[in-house]
């Protein structure tokens, strides 16, 4: 086969053809994957919600409330879980940037009386083997059933009531701060949504 000459027209045509083919095939694959990607994202959110909230039968992802608060830079997501007509709990995304390696994002599920049902870690960059232990059941267990109005979310070192992770006090402190933030937003916003009948 003869090699194509380096004429201007040849160069333009060949690059053009390659770009068109590449663009079209990417568009095609995008069409195929965009559905599963969206579905997967929602599924993961629902799975996290199922873990932190008591049993519910509505679709909290659909009735998400975006709350603008001065406690956080971006608006905060709040999910209300219902069983029949009753509010059974609320999940709030709490975050803190004071983790050992920056942002920690958690989902905190509250029962309607304000006590913590369960917590899930959504995003973190902590030290593997030390700070990442905040995902372990053993650590999260101490928060379950506690009401932050009477349970101090600070680590014992700061005169709080949370047993810090070994070698990861900073992570523990940030985790408590994120939980506190979720609680504050829940108290401020959650109580108003409760009285609203819909």
């Amino acid at each position, binding site marked *: 086969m003869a090699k194509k000459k380096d004429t201007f027209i040849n160069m333009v045509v060949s690059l053009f053809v390659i770009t068109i083919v*590449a663009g079209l095939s990417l568009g095609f694959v995008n069409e195929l994957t965009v559905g599963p990607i969206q579905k997967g994202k929602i599924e993961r959110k629902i799975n996290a919600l199922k873990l932190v909230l008591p049993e519910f039968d509505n679709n909290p992802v659909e009735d998400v409330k975006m709350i603008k608060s001065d406690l956080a*830079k971006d608006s905060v997501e709040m999910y209300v879980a219902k069983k029949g007509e009753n509010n059974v709990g609320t999940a709030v995304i709490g975050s803190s940037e004071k983790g050992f*390696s920056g942002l920690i994002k958690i989902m905190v599920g509250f029962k309607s009386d304000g006590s913590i049902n369960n917590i899930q870690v959504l995003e973190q960059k902590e030290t593997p083997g030390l700070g990442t232990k905040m995902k372990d059941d053993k650590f999260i267990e101490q928060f379950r059933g506690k009401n932050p109005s009477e349970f101090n979310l600070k680590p014992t070192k700061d005169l709080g009531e949370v047993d810090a992770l070994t070698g990861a006090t900073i992570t523990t402190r940030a985790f408590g701060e994120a939980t506190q933030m979720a609680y504050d937003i829940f108290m401020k916003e959650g109580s108003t949504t409760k009285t609203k009948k819909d």
Partner: protein
Amino acid sequence: MEYIIILIGAVFVNNIVLSQFLGICPFLGVSNKVSTSVGMSGAVLFVMTIATMATYMLHEFILVPAGLEYLRTITFILVIAALVQMVEIILKKVSPPLYQALGVFLPLITTNCAVLGVAILALGMENASLLKAVFFAVANSIGFGLALILFASIREHLELADLPKGMKGVPINLLVAGLLSLAFLGFTGLV
């Protein structure tokens, strides 16, 4: 204050080479002399800043409004490749001395993953803005330069060291990079 945190974060805490592993190829490749590593750092500072500015605008004003985010990788790499070519041509015309200093490094930068990496990372920053993205690129290229120059000055001394045969060359360089990275690990938790 926010900008100081970005600067310290990018240079020390999350150093692009030593803790994010971007730009390892030039880090290992052009670090045998301090003088060449200074030249390379200059070229990276130059290209990374312009490239991040260009890709950020491309993403904000064309890809997102048109719903074409999935073309991000392909458009970014083309923009960077084209930019590097353009910078090379312009430098040659406008400032021959600068071209003399940076010229040889420019073609290497297209495949420097630090440039594409920072361009992509800049999109994911909180409350991102063009100014912040550009500042982020500058901070990261300073981090790149710091790591590269430190590493090169250690390597210059290493040439005199008497090493076991198996450790010579690549392995000892990697080991030194590991120790340097260990030192930078001490900065974690600073911001």
